[in-house]
């Protein structure tokens, strides 16, 4: 049982809790594959998507997950809310709670915002991405997809490629994959991988041709265009030449390697279209699995009595 009212990060979860979420998600995957993709489980509950950063896919995925559980959803997006009138973050969250929200799904550009709100609110807080800290449901859906494709996670060689230092997706995945027993490799330019990260049990490679050797899973990260010209890498062309995933590079991995990407992709920069649309890509399955995993999270959090 998940004895928590909030999902703040993978760092805060035990291996048992991660596995419980993944096992529960399998039951929800059945539901979303049917003609009638809806169950009455959480009817009468309300979820509010409180997004202080633009997002289409994560917000839509949470919205669908809630709707498939018969929960009502409100999207509270920043440009139309009183946040622009200067209402404080906590006042906004308290207002949303007073409107009757049982779940507050939050994305914010500052790390730690979900943790702060979780202390102030009775409602369940779900972290949909906070600054450069974590994006736990992305890591859970990635783990679910790997488990579905490979049957296990333990002992797999998994490479995460790209801008590790700014990526909350990478951070949540590193925590989760280490807890689940994978052998994690980080590949990217030295400017984009935190120094001394090897101390937590991952291997760092700056040469992609070495790092990809014999891996079971390649997770590509989106290169954030806004980082260009800030000294992290010389140019997108240069980045692509050294750390872009091409068919030649992918052939260094195991024959049955799977390729993942959290989206949105920069085709032709970190990944070629040939791979993104190829047989080894599980990118669209990640999207589908995201709904099942988010349903599982909402279901399990709602079990905590307060």
């Amino acid at each position: 049982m998940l004895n928590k009212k909030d999902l703040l990060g993978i760092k805060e979860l035990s291996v048992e809790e991660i596995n419980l979420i993944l096992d529960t998600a399998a039951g929800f995957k059945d539901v979303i594959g049917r003609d009638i993709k809806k169950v009455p489980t959480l009817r009468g509950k309300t979820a509010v998507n409180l997004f202080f950063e633009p997002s289409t896919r994560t917000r839509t995925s949470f919205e669908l997950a809630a709707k498939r559980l018969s929960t009502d959803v409100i999207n509270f997006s920043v440009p139309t809310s009183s946040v622009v009138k200067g209402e404080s973050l906590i006042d906004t969250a308290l207002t949303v709670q007073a409107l009757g929200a049982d779940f507050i799904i939050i994305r914010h550009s500052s790390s730690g915002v979900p943790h702060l709100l979780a202390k102030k609110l009775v409602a369940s807080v779900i972290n949909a991405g906070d600054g450069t800290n974590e994006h736990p449901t992305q890591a859970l859906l990635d783990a679910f997809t790997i488990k579905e494709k490979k049957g296990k996670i333990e002992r797999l060689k998994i490479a995460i490629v790209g801008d590790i230092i700014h990526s909350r997706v990478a951070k949540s995945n590193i925590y989760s994959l280490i807890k689940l027993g994978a052998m994690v490799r980080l590949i990217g330019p030295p400017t984009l991988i935190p120094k001394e990260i090897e101390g937590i049990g991952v291997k760092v490679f700056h040469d992609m041709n070495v790092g990809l050797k014999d891996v079971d899973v390649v997770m590509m990260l989106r290169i954030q265009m806004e980082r260009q010209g800030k000294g992290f890498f010389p140019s997108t062309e240069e980045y692509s030449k050294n750390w872009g995933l091409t068919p030649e590079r992918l052939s260094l991995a195991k024959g049955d390697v799977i390729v993942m990407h959290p989206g949105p992709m920069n085709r032709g920069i970190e990944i070629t279209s040939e791979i993104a649309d190829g047989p080894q890509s599980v990118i669209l399955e990640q999207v589908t699995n995201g709904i099942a995993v988010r349903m599982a999270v909402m279901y399990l959090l709602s079990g905590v009595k307060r």
Partner: protein
Amino acid sequence: MPKELMNKKDIDRALMRMAHEIIEKNKGTEKLCLVGIQRGGVHLAKRLASKIKQIEKKSIPVGLLDIALYRDDLNIRKEQPVVRRTEVPCEITDLKIILVDDVLFTGRSIRAAMDALMDLGRPACIQLAVLIDRGHRELPIKADYVGKNMPTALSETVQVQLKEEELEDRVILEKK
């Protein structure tokens, strides 16, 4: 001390009789599909299917149904029930579904199971087979095939133990 209501042989005989009754009432095995409720009902559904095959020499599909997402007590339970797989191997629309469970008690699980089934399709009919009917219905539900009727007190619990769960086949009655 727990009291044994049925032993291995009793369970086997009851299931054999139920298999005959199912075939008799449905005039054969055409359009039949057995659906067991997770978890005890699943084992019993598989056993019934193999007995029916023994008698009629015909295989009928067996599905498993998880009712956790359809329960009516999610708001009052201490813990969320474990969500298990639902796997029904065929389109259930127009089939005659025999829902199988181990113990029929308040009828609330069966209500949840019927709602879950209806979301999978529109069966021609739903019939209910249970190994034990212990009474105390809270909903207007009754079984079509019963292994054993066993009047019980609310203070008692009935447990069906099966070898598929690594226990010896038997049904026991215990005081809470």
